[in-house]
């Protein structure tokens, strides 16, 4: 029994039944398939997370954000600037308690170099309804390229708890046809 020492002192030598051997082989191969699927996706898939990251400071990062807002602001949403950076350009997203700053307007089908960092706590960038989710850290600048492939109004929810106003944190990304 499983609650008594093995009856056969040399239990290692007891042969293993065929169904078990087959299942072990199948499970092992399935593990390899799943492992190499991730690697395959890095080579051929279209959704991979960039590893490009830099150390930064809240001051240094907000200076970049402010510079972008100054150059490319097109309007505002209840006082929050909406910026429209040039296609292929840099987009600096700032997370802070409890807002995403600024709001962004993008052109469908164009690629943008997004930068993410936080001014204070950790935040979660959750793009809805696309459902892409990233962790945003203070002190680190994460850089990745997005290519929005459908136009519409997208919301950025914060999905990392960041204090009592966490559920108030809601940003916007607009994707337009032209």
């Amino acid at each position, binding site marked *: *029994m*499983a*609650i008594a*020492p*093995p009856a056969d*002192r040399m*239990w290692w030598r*007891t*042969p*293993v*039944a065929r*169904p*078990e051997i087959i*299942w072990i082989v199948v*499970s*092992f191969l*399935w*593990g*390899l398939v*799943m*492992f190499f699927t*991730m690697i395959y996706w890095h080579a051929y*898939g279209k*959704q*991979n*997370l960039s590893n490009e*990251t830099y150390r930064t400071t809240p001051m240094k990062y907000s200076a970049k954000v402010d510079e972008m807002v100054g150059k490319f602001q097109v309007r505002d949403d209840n006082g929050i600037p909406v910026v429209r950076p040039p296609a292929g350009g840099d987009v600096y997203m700032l997370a802070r308690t409890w*807002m995403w700053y600024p709001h962004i307007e993008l052109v469908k089908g164009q690629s943008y170099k997004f930068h*993410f960092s936080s001014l204070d*706590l*950790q935040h*979660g960038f*959750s*793009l*809805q*309804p*696309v*459902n*892409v989710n*990233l*962790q945003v*850290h*203070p*002190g*680190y600048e*994460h850089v990745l*390229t*997005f*290519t929005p*492939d459908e136009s519409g109004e997208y919301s950025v*929810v914060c*999905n*990392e*708890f960041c*204090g*009592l106003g*966490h*559920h*108030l944190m*809601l940003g916007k990304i607009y994707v337009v046809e032209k």
Partner: protein
Amino acid sequence: MVATPESLPLPAAHEEPRFRTCASTGLKIHLAAQTLIKANAVTAVVFLAIGGLFGLLVALTRWPAVHLLPADWFYLVLTAHGLDVLLLWIIFFEIAILYFASAVLLGSRIAAPRVAWAAYALMLIGGLITNVAVLQGGSTVMFTSYTPMMAAPNFYLGLIIFAVGALVALGVFFGTLVVARDERTYEGSVPLVTFGAITAAIIAVFTLASGAIILIPTYLWSLGLISMPDPLTYKLIWWGMGHSSQQINVSAHVSIWYLIAAVVLGAKPLSEKVSRMAFFLYILFLQLASAHHLMVEPGLSSEWKVFNTSYAMYLAVLGSMIHGMTVPGAIEAAQRANGYDKGLFGWLRHAPWGNPAFAGMFLSLIMFGFIGGISGVVLGTEQINLIMHNTIYVPGHFHGTVVAGTTLAFMAGTWLLLPLIFQREIIWPRIARWQPYIFAIGAGGISLFMMGAGTLGVARRHWDITFADASMSFSYPPAAFLMMGLNGICALFAATGGIMYILTVVATVLWGKRIADGQAVQLASPKARVVTEYGSIEHPKIPGTIILTVIFFVAFVLYYYVNWKYLAEVWPMR
């Protein structure tokens, strides 16, 4: 059982350890160990009651139509819920299991009972300090307490004291293994259940050490003595505790599956070698999955992410898949040998479904495999994590592992522990009989509906998914609200099952009919006898298990690739 000389040479200063022999199992039980098992198990159940109540409040708040608590209370209660069930309920109960699997199953005295009591006191004091810190309101930082968010110093201090206490208890466990070996209380290798407990204990050492290592500097920071621990490094090491503590659970509840199958049905593992190697894969690789929480983090390479998240090419998943076949396989072989040999599933139909230990164990096995296991691998796939990270899919997954898997298995184990260790007859057998089913419906439901809502983007740890007070407007799809409502209903089932468990256990411990020392109780199903295999060794007759295994495998593969398809539909990113 191997007969042991009653008097063994012991260190002179110690009093002679006192034993009793269990009339039901023939196990020789050290009375000091028995008391320690009782204390740790009872404390665990108390924390389950507290943490479970907090969990119900969380679910009722996230039920859009009910939305029970105000925001500040919601976040506070959610912090306490995670702390009390994920850490305190689970680890107190695991310490009870470790003492049982070492001292009781090996027929040994427990090493250093006084030290074990000191460990218990530290764990209890630590747990209480942190609970008080949370309830005082200055430590609403979630169970994860990511820096730069700062809790009151006592929040960290309590956790550190708890971790140190649990590490000391692990020392007692390993000490007991040495005592049993030196005093030759058993011959050959330890039983498989003890081996599983060793696996759990090893993972627990890494878990608690990681916790202590990261929480000590965080504590000093909260006192203003040192600068803030780097948020990314904090998160890396914290998950060495946060995720690995759930890997202790996996090892412990798999051991409980084997234990219950053995006690109730006389099932014997199909192969000692295969089952132990599966545990060995856990020891080597299971803890790497701490990386599951860092898949969309900046600053860690894809190489690190892919290697760690896949437990080194899914070798620990291989271990789980092996147990997933060998546990039902052992049950089927035992049932067939016991005479239930009709058809493919006659063995399963005639299983003792009225015995809550068996019912809980088997439901735990099925739900852990199909819900918790499969979703865990999918969620932990590097790229697929992009469409799930920090959505309520994540709690959906881990309620499938920790609630439907571990908690249900521990509850099932309790129905054996009450007669064997507490020596009490279960006071309300009819409630106990229905408890596993009610709890399983609830636990399975909350897991599935949270996973469903997460697939639709709903954020975890979020007070208001209608964003009523936000400056902008946004709404999740109506289906997401439906899922959150169904989650609330299932939480009521889980809570009912939980209350049935807690009341029955507490009443049994206090007022259950005493079982005298020499009196045997009927634990095993009437026909059970110890069986190892049915059919020949090359062709054991386990066709039912093979079919269950094939169904599981097909579900796994389909669900895995369906999620790749979902991923392929989101914005291209690189």
